[in-house]
């Protein structure tokens, strides 16, 4: 029979409050909701009908009270059992090693916490607690048999999850949100490399239908109910005349190609060949796969034509559909859509007027954080985006350097291949079709190895030889990223012990109900860097890997996660060389490349400047806008995401004079120049932060009328309190809040740091385990990664007295999150 798991823990010590022997949890226990204090702005008497606006919330500690039936056989045993509870609670309040109350709703599936993943555990940090007994204590027969102990706790506001290191990722990974009604990701896709040969695939060109021809009743759609990507989709109606809606594409060869697009009917009903079909010189046999919320993905595979060919869709008379996300790729199967704005993708030339490339994706986790070579279990929930009959090898995971490789994949010949480095199991399965979801458990340990598919064992071997020498576990690809799955990882959870067949069966029946709803079971958190080595450089230009940003995604929880960031620079003398680090976060629903909003100036060649050049301008006392040309315009998508945010600018500049003053300049959509800030400059490049200003917020309700903001421009204005001299400007980079500034208050030669919340310390990178050392000064805002967001984390090292040398590298040695849950 299933029972809740509820344990008090402190470090390695535990007390099971529902062990069904001595302690029985009362029925009055329930997971408490988060305790948030909202703050509303009500406005003045002019606000007669609008009500109050939520300005902020603040989570505060909450009370939790529940009972535990304590069972004993003697008075002394009873007293000891009650005292044990109180003893545990009396240790609460130690921030260094807190007391936790760990809860899982059901003990019928897996009773231990996973090594990498969440699996439904809720962990409450206990700040204070007392245990008491009621008046039945005086009843002698109860005193020696059973008593109800009442636990009265004060706990932290949120339930926590299990700390989890972010996987190291690169290339065109993506969270699958296509067709999800609530916008929450369905899971992680680790796709292979690809070129999308459509040149305006999501109608994102300034002229929305640039390159598209055909139907006379093809119109631009901005209604968000019929949008999947970017700003526009095409609304197609065929009444008479030409039935096609196409771009002229020359795929360049006659190899097999696959054309795909997304379509949705106005009534949300199934899209079929009676509505629209794919077209490549002629109508093509098209398959239709529902992707949710009325959207269908249409695919067709055929031989390419080495000549310009009308590529798109053809309509059936008197039908109407919305179409978006076109792709033609040189493959015999469809892969996830790619266009140049996506993470790990790029336009080969002009944005939305050229083909797009997707860099091969890779996701891996250092083995210590994810893999126990002695025993364990990997649970995968996998959704096929291409049927196994079409894409005959779909890699699930790979443990590198592990003898003959510890791996699992769907293999050709309709099988699952699971190899522990020695033994290979190849149970046959019927080919899963596109859209099918499998729940797999790969178990290894003293009992051997077993493959479970949808709760049932389909193959096993009685012995397991522990692997060694591995470094990383690759999720969704081979080590060399030559083979992928392209499917959706709706869960990837690793346990560090064998699971029994009973546990697997119970686990399956528990989570299968989630996958039936096409929803994710567990997220796969990742840290993306441009070249996959988790590092950034100290500037940002269009050159490959010259980025000062990483992206974190797949963050579990439903509130900002407790985030541990560990990193170290390669500055010669660490914090002595560069004692100040700016770190800021943009948590966006849609990924936008930070490179697009950097003003990388040029004019004079200088190898030590970003982009190889800087810009020189004469600055006098006028407070002139003569350098308004330094303002950059970025597209409204970013502005939409940033409305209401505060912006400042980090400027790398070299002053040939003195008495320089700097202001933030926002020429549009609202002209605003901040107060000037006096700078102490030098005849050398330094890093300066301009004053913060706020960006326009969205007028309430405008979005409901499909009214979007205009493009957004920003820049700087310089002047001098006296004198005239040139200023050399290397780059101007917008900074948004939350902004964290770490600085070394003393001369510290170490290069690394650990950061969490409002604390940061340097670490001694020369000692194993990177032990904490001298505290860093922390100012600004807390950096905490957000669930369901592309968390773009940007950094610059340098300050007003230290040159922010552009070649300096900052390596994120570890980013780990502990999710926060508001309720469950």
């Amino acid at each position, binding site marked *: 029979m299933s029972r809740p798991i509820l344990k008090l823990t402190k470090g390695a010590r535990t007390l099971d409050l529902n062990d069904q022997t001595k302690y029985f949890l009362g029925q009055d226990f329930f997971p408490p909701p988060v305790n948030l*204090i909202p*703050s*509303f*702005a*009500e*406005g*003045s*008497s*002019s*606000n*007669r009908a609008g009500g109050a*606006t939520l*300005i*902020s919330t*603040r989570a*505060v500690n909450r009370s939790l009270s529940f009972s535990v039936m304590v069972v004993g056989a003697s008075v002394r045993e009873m007293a000891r059992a009650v005292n044990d509870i109180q003893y545990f609670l009396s240790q609460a309040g130690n921030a260094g090693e807190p007391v936790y109350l760990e809860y899982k709703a059901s003990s019928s599936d897996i009773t231990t916490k996973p090594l990498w993943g969440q699996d439904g555990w809720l962990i409450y940090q206990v700040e204070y607690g007392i245990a008491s007994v009621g008046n039945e204590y005086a009843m002698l027969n109860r005193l020696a048999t059973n008593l109800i102990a009442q636990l009265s706790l004060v706990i932290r506001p949120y339930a926590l999850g299990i700390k989890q290191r972010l996987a190291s990722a690169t290339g065109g990974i993506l969270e699958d949100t296509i067709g999800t009604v609530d916008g929450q990701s369905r899971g992680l896709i680790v796709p292979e490399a690809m070129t999308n040969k459509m040149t305006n695939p999501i109608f994102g060109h300034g002229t929305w239908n640039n390159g598209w021809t055909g139907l006379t009743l093809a119109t631009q759609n901005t209604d968000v109910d019929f949008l999947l990507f970017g700003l526009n989709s095409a609304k197609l109606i065929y009444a008479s005349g030409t039935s096609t809606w196409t771009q002229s594409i020359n795929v360049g060869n006659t190899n097999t190609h696959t054309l795909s697009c997304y379509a949705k009917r106005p009534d949300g009903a199934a899209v079929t060949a009676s509505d629209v079909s794919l077209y490549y010189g002629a109508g093509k046999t098209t398959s239709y796969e529902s992707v949710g919320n009325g959207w269908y993905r249409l695919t067709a595979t055929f031989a390419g034509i080495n000549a310009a060919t009308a590529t798109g869709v053809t309509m059936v008379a008197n039908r109407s559909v919305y179409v978006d996300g076109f792709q033609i790729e040189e493959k015999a199967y469809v892969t996830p859509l790619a266009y140049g704005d996506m993470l790990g993708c790029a336009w080969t030339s002009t944005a939305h007027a050229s083909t797009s490339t997707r860099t091969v994706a890779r996701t891996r986790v250092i083995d210590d954080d994810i893999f126990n070579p002695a025993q364990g279990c990997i649970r995968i929930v996998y959704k096929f985006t291409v049927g196994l009959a079409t894409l005959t090898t779909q890699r699930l995971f790979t443990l590198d350097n592990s003898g003959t490789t510890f791996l699992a994949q769907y293999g050709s010949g309709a099988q699952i291949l699971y190899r522990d480095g020695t033994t290979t199991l190849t149970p046959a399965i019927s080919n899963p079709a596109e859209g099918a979801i499998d729940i797999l458990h790969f178990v290894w340990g003293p009992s051997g190895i077993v493959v479970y598919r949808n709760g049932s064992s389909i193959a096993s071997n009685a012995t397991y030889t522990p692997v060694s020498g591995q470094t990383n576990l690759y999720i969704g690809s081979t080590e060399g990223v030559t083979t992928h799955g392209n499917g959706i990882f709706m869960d990837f959870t690793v346990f560090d012990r064998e699971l029994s067949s009973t546990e697997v069966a119970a686990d399956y029946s528990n989570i299968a109900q989630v996958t039936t709803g096409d929803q994710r079971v567990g997220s796969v958190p990742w840290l993306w860097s441009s070249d996959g080595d988790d590092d950034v450089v100290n500037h940002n230009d269009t050159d490959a890997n010259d980025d000062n940003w990483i992206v974190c995604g797949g963050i579990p929880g439903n509130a900002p996660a407790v985030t541990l960031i560990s990193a170290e620079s390669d500055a010669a003398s660490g914090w002595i060389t560069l004692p100040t680090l700016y770190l800021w976060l943009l948590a966006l629903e849609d990924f936008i490349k930070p490179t697009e909003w950097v003003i990388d100036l040029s004019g004079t060649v200088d190898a030590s400047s970003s982009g190889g050049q800087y810009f020189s301008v004469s600055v006098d006392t006028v407070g002139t806008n003569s350098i308004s040309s330094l303002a950059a315009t970025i597209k409204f998508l970013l502005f939409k995401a940033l409305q*209401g945010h*505060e912006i400042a600018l980090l400027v790398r500049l070299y002053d040939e004079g003195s008495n320089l003053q700097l202001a933030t300049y926002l020429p549009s959509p*609202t*002209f*605003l120049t*901040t107060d000037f800030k006096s700078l102490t400059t030098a005849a050398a490049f330094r890093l300066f932060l301009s*004053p*913060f*200003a*706020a*960006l*326009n*917020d969205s*007028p309430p309700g405008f979005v409901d009328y499909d009214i979007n903001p205009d493009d957004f421009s920003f820049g700087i204005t310089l002047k001098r309190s006296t004198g005239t001299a040139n200023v050399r400007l290397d780059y101007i980079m917008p900074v948004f809040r939350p902004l964290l500034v770490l600085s070394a208050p003393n001369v510290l030669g170490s290069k690394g740091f650990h950061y969490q919340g409002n604390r940061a310390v340097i670490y001694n990178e020369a000692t194993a385990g990177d032990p904490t050392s001298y505290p860093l000064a922390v100012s600004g*805002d807390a950096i905490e990664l957000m669930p369901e967001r592309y968390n773009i984390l940007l950094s610059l090292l340098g300050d007003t007295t230290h040159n922010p040398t552009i070649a300096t590298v900052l390596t994120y040695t570890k980013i780990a999150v502990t999710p926060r849950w508001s309720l469950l």
Partner: protein
Amino acid sequence: MAAQSTLVIEIYSSGSAQIVDPNNLLARAEGIRFATCYPGGIYTTASFFISLDVTRWIPIKHGFRIIIRDGTRLVWEGWIAEVIYKVDPARSGIEVSCLGFWSLLFHQIKYNRWIDRRFDGPTVDIWYANDTSANAKCTFDKRDRLMFIPKPEAWSSGEYASLRYTLNAASNVKRAKFTYDLQEGAQAWELMLYDVQHSASLWSTASSGSGNADITLSASSAATLDFRLYSRAAQTPTSSSIYGKITNMSMLAENSSGSVTTTPTAILQACTAEAYSGCILSACTNLIGSNTYDLTDIGIVDDGLNRSLADFMLEVAKLSSDGSKWVIGVRESEADAGETRALLYYEQPPALTDYDYVLSIDEEVLAGGFDLVASAMPEDVLKRVIVKFKNPRGLEDWSYADKTISTNYLSRHAVVTADNSVTTLIGASALAETIIASRQNLSYRIGTPITIKGFVRAKTGEHVPASWVRAGKRIKIENFLGDFGDEATGTGFTFLISQTEYNDENETNRLTLGKPDSVALDMAKASAR
């Protein structure tokens, strides 16, 4: 629906340029409160709260001009004086406190002089003995005069004793008015007003006798003047009957037009220019009423530089030739077309024979009750007012005014000590007339403030939002068919609103009502306490 307030806030960084408020923070402003007073004011204090993350950048800066409107109507104007960043676990935000521009005039030190009647002063340059001349041979008396008494020592011909005056302000002396008296006996002496700056005699007399002099400097005004007593022969004074004396002296400063400024209106207009240069007020003088009472020979004995502009203006404003009341304060910029700064007003309070608003004692907008006080207390009804003052010599003198009151009230007198603005019998008499004019009948007032909620009726019947009601307006209490006390039939219970405190949270306006006292009497009463 009843008239209702819809308050909005506007903030101006300069002139008519409103601040850029990209996050519409001002729309979040809540808890708006503002107050007015009359006389003075009119806009005194205001405050509001904006809920936000206090670490955010905000476009609100100290010193910016702020207007609170009800719809399009200006109901308060001032400047941002204080921003409190409230870090509150439950509710963080900023609390913005504002003051009316009137407040700044109390912190703007007067720089110009207009009429200086001092014979001596605690500061330098007020008729001091000039060491460079034969002052050692002369005795000076400056208690109510400038008196030269040559000592019985041998004086050479051409030696002189002198007292020197330097205006020491933004302008020079343009006119000197005084009474002289020279007594030389059988000797040869000369009394002279000398322009030190231009080394020229402006006036002199060399024979025994007295008279009045009114000297207007023709070409150039002078920063420094001497009164000199010359010995016109080698002689030794034989008795104290030989002297030179100056009394009833006024030194009038040159204004920007090259003439002197001698009336309250003209002086206040000049003060406006001074406040304008400090970016406090508009230069517009359209709201400064005409009071042509000539102050050349009265008042303003202390035209020093150690006082605030407001203090000085209050002193000047109250004097009139006919006992009429005059009040001064600051009105909103929009009181005159095209202005973006507040305007000085100078006016006689509105007569209570008319009214602006009407209130019934059983009206639902009246929140709570109030006391109507009719008073014949000794300080409220007076038969005689005696004004004590200090003359230019610093000696106490007095004048008085009498009026007939109802015998029912019994005779009562009041002695009022004037401030330094009154230095002559004429001035004291004028002030006494002013005071007693407002103390001939029963005094009635509202003992506690009246709180109105939502709206009030205008004289013409329409409902006016409570936020519009400001000090300086009149309100009539209905319900009493007969008139009250000594008031003439038909004037009713009409009160001048002397103070308002509007609270937007509950849309109430707390009105302090009463008959207007003259500033002088208020001051006199305070002094008496």
